[in-house]
């Protein structure tokens, strides 16, 4: 096995990096892939919460780097999916506890026994981002269809290019077709026109994502939500399958209802 290191990044905070990392990891593990997630957000860890593994943390990333434990000891196995592991971040330290070369070494050690190493990058373009970028084979940039997050995504794509880790690929998260239709939100085409990179996933806005995250049970576990389906499609594309992008607009689910409601309120 020779794992592919995928770094999930965005520049801007709150666009869904951690949710995307968790869901792609779950979706890949459900495709019988061996996956380890690394939480790169030292000091502000979240990935453990979203994956519902918070109560099982004994050792963390910084413990591994500083030699207090072996990698194996810091890897938390997800009981729901035996092929899914998490290396949590330390909560009591900051980004400077780890260096880019530490991350490269860590990933090299994991590569032999894994198919995928998914690194959840922190927001920003400083040390934490540099750490997450250093070992990457592929960078997935998460953005929302709104101007400021697209602007930051553009910056990240440029930095990834400058580090010769490019071209990055794009995940457009929280797409709300009703808003796009009214011209109040950027369309997928608008975003792609500006960023000019390959699109690998379009995730619709879906309140079940929030519910699932709060429960520590990412939407990808169940296949009954639009967002979960979209994450599974993205994971399949990462595995090289040709999966058509789902038509987010053609749906009679809650999104349309929500849209109608909003329209009503808007008038």
């Amino acid at each position: 096995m020779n794992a592919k290191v995928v770094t999930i990044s965005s520049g801007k905070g709150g666009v869904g990096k951690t949710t995307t990392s968790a869901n792609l990891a779950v979706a890949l593990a459900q495709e019988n892939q061996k996956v380890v997630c690394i939480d790169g957000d030292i000091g502000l860890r979240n990935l453990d919460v979203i994956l519902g593994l918070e109560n099982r943390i004994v050792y963390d990333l910084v413990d591994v780097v500083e030699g207090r434990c072996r990698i194996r000891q810091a890897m938390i196995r997800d009981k729901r999916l035996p092929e899914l592991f998490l290396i949590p971040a330390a909560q009591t330290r900051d980004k400077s506890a780890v260096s880019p070369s530490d991350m490269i070494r860590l990933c090299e050690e994991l590569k032999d026994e894994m198919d995928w190493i998914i690194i959840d990058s922190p927001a920003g373009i400083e040390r934490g981002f540099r750490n997450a970028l250093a070992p990457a084979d592929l960078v997935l940039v998460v953005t929302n269809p709104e101007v400021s997050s697209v602007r930051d995504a553009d910056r990240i794509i440029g930095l990834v290019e400058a580090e010769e880790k490019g071209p990055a690929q794009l995940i457009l998260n929280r797409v709300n077709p009703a808003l796009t239709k009214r011209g109040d939100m950027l369309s997928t085409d608008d975003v792609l026109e500006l960023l000019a990179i390959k699109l690998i996933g379009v995730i619709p806005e879906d309140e079940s994502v929030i519910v699932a995250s709060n429960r520590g049970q990412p939407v990808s576990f169940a296949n009954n939500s639009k967002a979960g389906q979209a994450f599974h499609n993205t994971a399949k594309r990462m595995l090289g399958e040709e999966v058509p992008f789902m038509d987010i607009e053609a749906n009679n689910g809650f999104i349309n209802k929500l849209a109608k409601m909003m329209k009503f309120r808007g008038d």
Partner: protein
Amino acid sequence: MKPDLGMIRLKQPDSIQIKGIREGLLITLGEGDWHDIFASLMEKITEKEKFFQGAKLAMDVGNRILHAADLGTLRDRLADKNIILWAILSNSPVTELTAQDLGLATRISVPKPERIIKSIESSIPGEDAIFLRKTIRSGFKVVSNGHIIIFGDVNPGGEIIAGGSVIVWGRCQGVVQAGVDGDQNATVCALDLNPTQLRIAGIIAISPKRKGKPQPEVAKIIAGQVVAETWNPKSR
């Protein structure tokens, strides 16, 4: 004065450069005392005797003033090694004349006679510009004293700063400054000119909200204001 070959001298590897040209070999001699250089040249040739065997040699001696005795010795010593010296290149007219007296050429490429008769200069010199074939993304900056040509987009948050004009073969949505040193004749052209801010020679303009389809536009200073006009081949 005869070159003192008996002495061991410090080698100056950079003072003698050898390269192959169409007409044979070109040896460029750097600064330094002629006798030292001459000695280390002969040393070099002796070292690689096989390589130089039968070579046709042109020699660039730089600014040195060399007299008939120097050049004669040079030619003879080279001839001893079976090397033909056919040209001496020099910035010194004295050296050139001496070389010509000895029947040596003073230019490498012999111009064709008909070219000399019709010497109308048909190549236009042009001005300095830098060319980039990429997207200039947010947070990146391209700076040049000359002109800047981007084959790609300039995204919002990207910056172009040129002493001269700017041409964007793509969408231009970042901040563009042309003629930063005060060149009022600088222009900014783009296939889709929609910059966050545009400055020509310090005069600032902000793009109006776009209506309709993008068209190639040219921005320049007219009567003290930055004006963007749709590119029109007829009005050129």
